[in-house]
Structures are given as structure tokens and as C-alpha cells.
């Protein structure tokens, strides 16, 4: 390593490139993460990409034939699933924002000494597995359960049925149940980033705005909301992206008519054993999400996401 050391005649005061060893340090520090990414992200991605342009059959094996038709066919057959996935994910994201923002605001500004407890309560559902939590909703939303009974008596189910969200006076196996399941499962991912960005807003700014005769609503609109935008953007992304790829909620809370693209990919991989189509669908899903996210971030105009 002595060979890499700075030459003795170089004066320490002279501004110049840092000694080579120090220049390399960041790369050494990056190495573990880079390796991790290479092995668990880049390599599988390349493998998946190659699978998506293969053709053949399970029995005879698959070969790379650059069959791009896998993509057009998948899009053709499963356009409805893609649309449904993004529709449900968008609905769930909007609901998460509507529920999560007031809650995060309350925890950040009004909770006082309860702040810690409330935050733990937000994270508490993670102590149970995703699957178990979703299964629990089957009991809560059961046809003969008190919730459906109450909603039916109040004629809420008639309203949702008119909107095409439910059928036959039931909640389970309807689009509403799937969207609610997604909302519930991804809500913490919305609340936490919202809370971190709201918590950083200096309450002094509120007082300053009020001193300048801003009404509470104006304070929120002109001060709080703009300052919390990074949280909103991060929260919506953390909710929308996993929600559009989710298949558990559609599987457990939906009927055959509510299946999402995740279900289709799973079936292609595990039951049909058509790996190329499944890989092509995964790529289409990734590409679609990437495009939407890019457009969204550009639109939201938030550079300082972190």
C-alpha cells in the first residue's frame, strides 16, 4: 500500500487532488451495497429480461429467440388486469392519503406526549404477518357479520352497489373489499413519511403566518402543505408501487372478476409454467410503474425528496 501513498515532496497545503487512497475510500464503502444490488437486483433483472424474450415449452426447455411478441401478447391478453391494478392502486393511494394525512398531522402537531404511543400503534400491525392481517378482514367483512348487517340496514350497500363497487348485499368478493384491503395494508407506508416531513415543520412558521393574518386554512395551504410535499410524494409512491403489484388482497378479498396483474403473473409462473409470458408481464408492470412515477415526480416538482 506504500506505493499508493502520496509522494513525500507534495506540500500538504497545496490544493490538488486528494491522495489516491482517499479517493478510493467512497468506492470501498459502496462495495457491500453495490455487491448486494448486483447479486440480488441486477442479476435477477437481467435473467428475467432474458426470460421475457424466450420461447419454447416447459417440457422442452426455453431458449432465447428474441420473441418480442411475448410482450404484445401479454399486453393484449391482460390489458384489463393492468388497468384494474393501477385503478385499484390509485384508489387505495388516494384513500391512504385522505386517512393518513390528518392522522400524521395530528401526531406531529397535536399529540403531545402521546406521540410515541401513537406512532407505535401505526406500526403495530406489522407485528402480524401481512397474510394473517388480510385473512382477518375476511372475518370482519363476513356476509353474516355485524358490519355487513349494519351497512345493509343503513342502505349503504345499496349506494355502493349502484356505484358498481359491491354486488348482492355483500362486501367480500367485491372491488370495494379489495381496495379497502389495499388501503389498510399500505396505510403505514403513507403515514410514516408524512409524519417525518410534517414533524420537521417548525411550529414557529404557523405562528408567523397567523401573525400575518392568515386564516388557519390559509396557513395550511400556504405553509404546511407545501413543506410536507416531500412526505406526500414519498408516501404516495410507497403506497402506489407495492399496491399495484399486490396479489394477496385480490386473491383473498376479491372474486374472479377482481384479479389483478400480480395474480396473473403468479398464475403464469406457477401454474401455467409459461415463464416468458410471466417475465414479460413483470417487465411491463415495472415499466408502466417507472413511467408513471417519473411523470408524477416531474409534475410534483419535488427535488428534495429525502
Amino acid at each position, binding site marked *: 500500500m506504500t506505493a499508493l501513498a502520496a509522494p513525500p515532496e507534495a506540500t500538504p497545503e497545496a490544493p490538488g487532488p486528494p491522495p489516491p487512497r482517499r479517493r478510493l475510500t467512497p468506492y470501498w464503502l459502496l462495495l457491500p451495497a453495490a455487491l448486494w444490488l448486483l447479486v440480488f437486483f441486477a442479476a435477477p433483472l437481467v435473467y428475467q429480461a432474458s426470460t421475457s424474450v424466450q420461447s419454447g*415449452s416447459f417440457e422442452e426447455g426455453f431458449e432465447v429467440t428474441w420473441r418480442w411478441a411475448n410482450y404484445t401478447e401479454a399486453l393484449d391478453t391482460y390489458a384489463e388486469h393492468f388497468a384494474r391494478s393501477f385503478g385499484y392502486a390509485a384508489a387505495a393511494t388516494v384513500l391512504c392519503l385522505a386517512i393518513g394525512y390528518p392522522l400524521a398531522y395530528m401526531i406531529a402537531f397535536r399529540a403531545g406526549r402521546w406521540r410515541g404511543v401513537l406512532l407505535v400503534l401505526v406500526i403495530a400491525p406489522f407485528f402480524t404477518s401481512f397474510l394473517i392481517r388480510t385473512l382477518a378482514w375476511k372475518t370482519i367483512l363476513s356476509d353474516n357479520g355485524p358490519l355487513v348487517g349494519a351497512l345493509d340496514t343503513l342502505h349503504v350497500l345499496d349506494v355502493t352497489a349502484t356505484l358498481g363497487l359491491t354486488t348482492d348485499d355483500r362486501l367480500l*368478493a367485491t372491488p370495494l373489499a379489495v381496495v379497502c384491503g389495499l388501503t389498510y395494508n399500505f396505510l403505514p407506508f403513507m403515514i410514516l413519511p408524512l409524519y417525518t416531513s410534517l414533524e420537521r415543520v417548525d411550529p414557529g412558521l404557523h405562528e408567523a403566518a397567523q401573525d400575518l393574518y392568515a386564516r388557519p386554512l390559509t396557513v395550511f395551504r400556504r405553509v404546511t402543505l407545501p413543506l410536507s410535499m416531500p412526505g406526500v410524494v414519498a408516501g404516495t409512491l410507497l403506497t402506489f408501487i407495492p399496491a399495484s403489484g399486490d396479489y394477496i388482497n385480490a386473491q383473498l378479498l376479491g372474486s374472479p372478476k377482481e384479479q389483478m396483474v400480480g395474480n396473473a403473473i403468479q398464475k403464469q409462473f406457477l401454474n401455467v409454467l409459461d415463464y416468458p409470458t410471466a417475465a414479460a408481464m413483470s417487465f411491463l408492470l415495472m415499466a408502466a410503474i417507472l413511467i408513471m412515477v417519473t411523470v408524477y415526480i416531474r409534475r410534483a416538482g419535488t427535488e428534495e425528496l429525502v
Partner: protein
Amino acid sequence: MDPFASLPEPVARAWERSLTSGRAAVSRRRLLAAGGALAGAAALPALGACGIPAADTGGEDGEAAAARDYSGKEKELAFSNWPLYIDVDDENENVRPTLERFQERSGIRVAYTEDVNDNVEFFGRIKPQLAAGQDTGRDLVCLSDFMAGRLIRHGWAQRLDPRNLPHANVNLEPRFRNAAHDPGRQFTMPWAGLATVVAYNKKATGGREVSSVAQLMEDEALKGKVSLLTEMQDTIGMTLIDMGKSPTKFTDDDFDAALARVQKAVDDDQLRRFTGNDYTEELVKGDIAACLAWAGDIVQLQLDTDDIEFVIPAKGYLYATDDLLVPARARHKTNAEKLIDYYYRPDVAAELAAWVNYICPVVGARAEMKKIDASLADYPLIFPDRQMIDKGQVFMSMNDDKETAYQDKWSKVIGA
């Protein structure tokens, strides 16, 4: 140790022939005659001719690569089974009485793992090792017949040695002997039989009886409260039977017709969901009023509640088996065979069936069951009576291409 491993190909073939159809096999042949052992012998060359690229298998000709058998030296056995598929002690669920006794008697230490949750998923897990010609670390696995058939076709199952299976040879129910996926039972032995039947919750149907697949799909009173099974074989098989077709032998057109019926039920909002084992809670709650169900589940549900009823449709029902097989390159084949044979002792089989509640494939177990629990001995879903046996049909064995084509169409109907 595989007796044929070190012999040249023609000599090994001759040995095999003499064992399966020569004098050495006389006792076995007589036993198997009722079940069609001849078909098994006839299938030998057919299996050898299976088109599998050399890179894909450990074996030379599609026959399972019989690895060296270390059973003599290593008194061990790794057994992968489905959850809740073996008897456990009432007080301690980590104690499995029949398995404990096997270990005591044989001196073989069994590593019992409940890691088979789904045929296809499990196949995906062991396939890389099998394809690379490596040991999967498992000496005995329990898989449904269609999946066992896939392993056999690829040459990824080891041929069982009938000399190590004296009880199994004698006690295997005749009707399970000539299985389409494994003619003459050369590679597999059933662990339990599964019947697909119609089940309903009396309370949820308002006392209405549900007696056929047609009723599941068309009865307005059940709209939105019916579930069918995600397993293509089960639902399409039952639909074909309902249409008067045979699930054992049907054409692509028949398949499409059955598929169209299921699709119509989906379009009409008649069906609520397609399910795996998870229909049970919803059936008990009444969210599902009527469904296609597996008999073993129903036996257990009936113990818990009086509302659940099952019906063997007049036109028939579908049955299948979960089979034990030794994967290619497994190190302890003889130990595995000893365990298989042990579970074909009628007293052991009865003890297992009393706990598992699936169809018992062992002759003589019913008499033993009378000693354990007389009511279970007369239970047609565990020990089917003549009438029920006659109504049972199996789903045909398919090659992977056909299965893929059917699964592709099927997955679109079930919504994915």
C-alpha cells in the same frame, strides 16, 4: 444400493425384465394381477422412451438416476409431507405416534418436515436440484398424483423395489394399483386418497339440499355464494362428470365445453371465489353456502359443526391420490421404502387414517379402525363403500405441454 447401477445397459434391462415379469416376480405379479400389473410392465419401455434432453436429467434415458443408496450405513431418512397430514399426540403435537414407533422398530431416524404446501410451488423448489442431477436433500416426498406423474415423466423419481415392500404389495387397495400417472405403481405408493365432492352449509342454503355440480353453477338461490376449486383437475373434472363425460378420457372440445360452463358461472356472478383449502372457514361461516370440497376436510368440519353436509353427486365424483415417492439422487431409498411399507400395515394405516381422515388406501385397515373408532370405520369418506367406489373417476394423466395449454385457458377463466 441399486442392483442395476453397475451393470451394462442390456444386462440391466434383462435383469429388470426378469424381476418384473420373470419368476422372481411371480408373487408380486399375482398380487398385482387384479390391478393391472401387466399395464405396468408394458409401460416400462414407454417410460424409457420419454423425450427428455440429457442435460435436463440425472439419468441416461429418462429413468431416474438411482444414486448410491447409503441406507445401510446411514440410518436416516428425510421425509417431506404436507402440514397436518400425519397423526400427532393429543397432548404434544410434536410427537407423532406412528412415526415414533417406526423409528423405534427400524432404528432409522426420520427427519420429518411439513414443507409441502402446494404441489407446484414445491416442485419449483426442488426442480433446480433435480434438473442439475443433484440430491434434493429429501429421501421421501408426498405429492399429488399429477405432480408425481410429472416427476416420473422427467425421470426424477426412483423406481421402488418391490422386495422391500411386502406389506404394500399385499395391502394396497386394488383400485389404486393401476394409476394412469404410474401404471402398476412402480414409482409411487399412495399416502392417502382424496375425493372431490359437493359440500354445503345447511344454514346458509336455508335447508336447501345441493346435490350436483350443475346446481352449484346454475341455482339462482346460491348466486354469489358458491366456490369452486382453483385446482384445474378438480373443477374441470367434476364439471366433465356432471356433463356425462369421463375425466379419464376426454377431448379438447370436451375440455372447452366444460371451461365454457365455468366461465358462464363466473360471468353470471354465480361464483364467489376459486379456492384452495381455504374454503373451509368461509363454508362454516356461511359466506360460502355451497362448494366443491375435499372429502377429508369435510370429515373434520363435520366433527366441529352440524351444519355442513356433503353429497356424492349422482353422476359421480373425482378422486386422486397423494403419493409417496423417492426423488432422484436421494441417498436413502431403502430406508424410504421401509417407511412406505410400515405405513401399509393395517394397524398403522388405521391409526393414521383415524387422525388424517382422508381415504385410506390400505386393505385391512377398516377392520383395525373398528378397534379405534367404530364410527370412523363406517364413514364412507374414509372407507368408501362399494357404491361410492363405483362412482369415483380419476383425471387423466397429461404431458406437460397439454397441461400447460389447459392451465393457460384455465387461469384465464379463474380470473388471472
